[in-house]
């Protein structure tokens, strides 16, 4: 996914590592950019499902 602040790309797995040491342990539904620390909403399950379907079709 792409960071909305710095514009860099990273994988959600990579971003999940940023949740270590956080008080809410990723329970906030946010993704933290490993490059700049900006937090943005994690892709919801239904959005991922739709995107995967679209990608498969194309």
């Amino acid at each position, binding site marked *: 996914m792409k960071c909305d602040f710095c*514009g860099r*790309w990273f994988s959600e797995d990579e971003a999940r590592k940023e949740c270590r040491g*956080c*008080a809410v342990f990723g329970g906030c539904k*946010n993704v933290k950019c490993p490059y*700049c*620390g900006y937090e943005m*909403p994690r892709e919801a399950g239904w959005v991922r499902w739709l995107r995967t379907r679209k990608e498969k079709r194309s």
Partner: protein
Amino acid sequence: MPGRCHSSAAPQADPSLRKIVLVGNPNVGKSALFNRITGTYVVVSNYPGTTVEVSRGRLRLGSTDVEVEDTPGMYSLLPITEEERVARDILLESHADAVLHVVDAKNLKRMLPMTLQLIEAGLPVVLVLNMIDEAERLGVRIDTDRLARSLGVPVATTAALTGRGVKELIARLGEAGRGRTLPEIYYGPEVEAALARVEPLVPARAGLCPRALALLLLQGDERLEETLGLSAADVERMAEARREVERRAGAPASLLIPERLHDEAARLADEVFRAPEAGRVTWVERLSKWMMHPVTGLPILAVVLYYGLYKFVGGFGAGTVVDFLEGHVFETYVNPWVNDAVTRWIPWRWLQDLIALDYGVITLGLRYAVAIILPIVGTFFIAFSIIEDSGYLPRLAMLVDRLFKAIGLNGRAVIPMTLGFGCDTMATMVTRTLETTRERIIATVLLALAIPCSAQLGVILGMMSAEPRAMAVWAGFVIGVFLLIGWLTARILPGEPPMFYMEIPPLRLPRPGAVAVKTLTRMQWYFAEILPLFLLASVLIWLGKITGLFDAAVSGLGVVMGWIGLPKEAAVAFLFGFFRRDYGAAGLYDLQSRGLLTGNQLAVAAITLTLFVPCIAQFLVMQKERGTKTALAIAGFVFTFAFGVGALVNVVLTALGVKL
């Protein structure tokens, strides 16, 4: 002066070409090019000891097979993510005969710093300007011959998706590593002096040339220290060299080195890259520059705030939508029906109070959450997602960088400050991304004091949208307090003003789908968090009423309300505010809609509540991030200061005879 690394044993071209490695930023078409080169013979496996996938394939060149490896996306030789660490390790260990640096031709300037790093590292680089078809369609012109001469490496143009230029690229692979002439980049006296001390400590035959490795070590690459097996004494020498650079240059090497690379890349790009003469791209670029320039950027910011927050969140969200849900749906239908049903069917007064009437979980907790906070937060999240998706935030960071330096921060602090408008608690955790402890403390104080959360801000804007003069007083005081306290804190805490540097991603039109998804996700998360808390707050208030503690606290706080010129009923809102800021703001909204506040009182209440002590969640995070002593000190200061400023505003307005 030719680079020292460049004279080292260069890998020979055909027929001894044995291994090719592809590197580059994510999303530049690297994998598409890899597939074009290798065809179907591809093996995907995890890099040893990691979950990062690496693809390997073969390219048939005449009668020989050449191994081709596709690395995970990387932005720099200094890794931050595991993918980047793997890509860097491959470069260190693979001893490739050709390193194809694949870049997006449209964004050459942003990608050249890594090209410079790779060449500087003594690698046999071939620069591949991919997506050249898209660049040409946009009217971009690149002088590839001049670029090749300046860099001293072969430069090829490709469109990997269509296959254009791939054959020519393959034909030129043999040129990799020949005739490199890139002059050594000069990093300034402080860094160069440190390099002279650090370079002899780097072991020979470490994959990259010693100067490049020394540059990485100077930037604090701990992983590289491990990989190179440096002794504890050498690690300490490296750390001392880093401290020395920071002492002498006033900025860390981790900032000075990328900045210098960026300048060099910008100079090169200016020589060889021609953007389209006219059209949409140029207009967007111009707008982007205006957004960052103080003269034009501040009016643009004012327009964004006026329409995005004041009109949309304050006017539409907190006005129109709340009026409908609160005034029409709840006050006309839900609350009367619930009150009636409860008093009719439940004989016990204590249970009636818990469910309905003045402070019941439905008539107060649910009403606050659904009818007041949700529409406000929803409209705020829509506005915020549009701003975020357009790429405006990094430009805002550049705009406020100079102003923030006066208060001991820099443009990077825009990240926690902006997130603070969403939720101060989360933003307090994000302060850890700031470079120094000093910056983190300043940012934490300002978040606790002068940054209202989304619900608080929306409620305040909603209440004041009909009272523009009270709003002006509120905005003036809050901005003034933000700057004054930031300035004072920066004077009290010792330290140098930090530097800030970032690459600006392109500006774009917000995508409706992305905005909708972000807004819904944020609303879903926010509502799931606040609803139970609001209901719990109602239960606690109910308990407080049964035990008499609530009334005692309200009458105690009522005295303080008197000091700042507010009616004693306002004590209830402030008591709610202890629990959660947005709950307190909703209480204030209730008071105002019942006509209990004059214009002056509205300004005083809004200012005090904005500066008010952080909610319980924020206090706990402050305690975790900054320690109990600092958290208590911040909370104690904020609490006293908020009421002090409230009293001052009241006195000033009364003394001047101002009636808002």
